[in-house]
């Protein structure tokens, strides 16, 4: 399963897309598939300062509650308001319409701690064994 190019990944299965100093964050297709039907997403509030790899919310599937971590530090500037009415957007389009929040990135150098698409592929291939 090839990951979309141009994204960075965390070991906790979040993706990050960087445009200048704005990062868009979501969970990976692998993550949504493992979770199953997503019924609720709890996101940080706009204006909230978040720290790389910190726990900042939850994703709830029918069967379980999973912590949401952030791949990068910064200030939350937007959350995906569509998820409140339709959390299954994350299941249907994890890398697109199911994005979670946008962050004004504080330290771009933090991205060196994230994985490339091929590194992330290797990580989930290993998890499958």
């Amino acid at each position, binding site marked *: 399963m090839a990951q979309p190019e141009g994204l960075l990944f965390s070991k906790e299965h979040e993706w990050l897309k960087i445009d200048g100093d704005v990062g868009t964050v979501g969970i990976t297709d692998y993550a949504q598939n493992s979770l*199953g*039907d997503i*019924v*609720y997403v*709890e996101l940080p509030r706009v204006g909230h300062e978040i720290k790389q790899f910190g726990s900042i919310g*939850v994703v*709830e599937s*029918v*069967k379980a*509650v999973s912590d949401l971590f952030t791949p990068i530090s910064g200030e939350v500037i937007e959350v995906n308001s569509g998820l*409140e009415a339709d*959390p299954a957007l994350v299941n249907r389009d994890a890398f697109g319409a199911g994005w979670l929040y946008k962050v004004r990135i504080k330290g771009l150098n933090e991205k060196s701690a994230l994985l490339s698409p091929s590194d992330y592929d290797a990580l989930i291939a290993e998890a499958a064994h």
Partner: protein
Amino acid sequence: MNSTPETLRRTALYDEHVTLGARLVPFGGFEMPVQYAGILKEHDAVRQRAGIFDLSHMAQFELFGDGVADWADSLTTNAVGTMKRYQARYNIFTNERGGCHDDVLFYRLANRWLLVCNASNAAKMWAHLKAHNERPDVRLESRHGQAALIAVQGPKAVEIVAPLCDGDAKDVAELKYYFCAEGSVDGTRAVVARTGYTGEDGFELFVDGADAPRLWRRLLEVGKKYGLEPAGLGARDMLRLEAGMPLYGFELDEELSPLAGGQSWAVKMNKPAFAGKAALAAQLAADDYQRIAGFVLEGRVPARTGYPVFSGGKRVGEVRSASIAPSYGNRNIGTALLPKAATAVGTPLEIEIRGARHAAQVVSLPFYKRER
């Protein structure tokens, strides 16, 4: 369950689950499908069309002899002796404190009885039955792990299953709810019962493990045009909760009596002595025991088992089961164990979720009832 991955057992249908792409999880000592296409899709298939479930992990015990009804009546709360031939009946094995060893189904056949126990209680129940059987006119046999159980549930179940039935089971379309027949399904010897745990019409097919894979594939094949889909334990749990049916370990356990668990309809106090009768009589007289009630949350945040429940600002109980409920307006529902005073329909509750309290209220069970 205490099973480690090494000791997990597989049902006769294990290979079918793998072929269908099921996600397998340990349950009751078996590796069982929790979902195939997804819990919500499978739930929808059962409510709108039909779903097929592998329930071969459940313990099947066979009871023989003239003393079975009498003996079973002494260990359970519901009536066994009044069951007609080919009738099925829900029942509860109680301990001396009135708590539940297990909730089960009895099926009375021509010259034997079938007792179906929860997989999670299989070993405990087998030991309990053996320890309490000193009667020469009752003989017990465990078929756990050898016998298979396939359920077809949903409004299309009759159209799918009935044409395959033959012998004494050929008229299963006319079978009343909670009755069964012994005959064949697609040439396979089977007990065909109009029972289930989903709140829908449907059948449970008791067959030999060796015959199960072929029958499973055949049912999927003939069910295709009706929209039959394989459904896992995740959908089953959601369906049963909506239908207000208890799950052992949640609404019933060794400390929770059938009265507390909302199953007083299955407690026959007019029976002669049975295990726990005195304790249940005392509970009934005092009427002060904590009991299960249904609740619905106001917001979109789901509750989970174990979350604290508040009433009038005071912590009064905890959530026992919870789910999103597609058949109840996609609301977040559940059951909670509460003091009697907090169980009246309409009572406002608060449920603590990650430190914040969320408004909920008591509603009557079941959440879902099919139109007949």
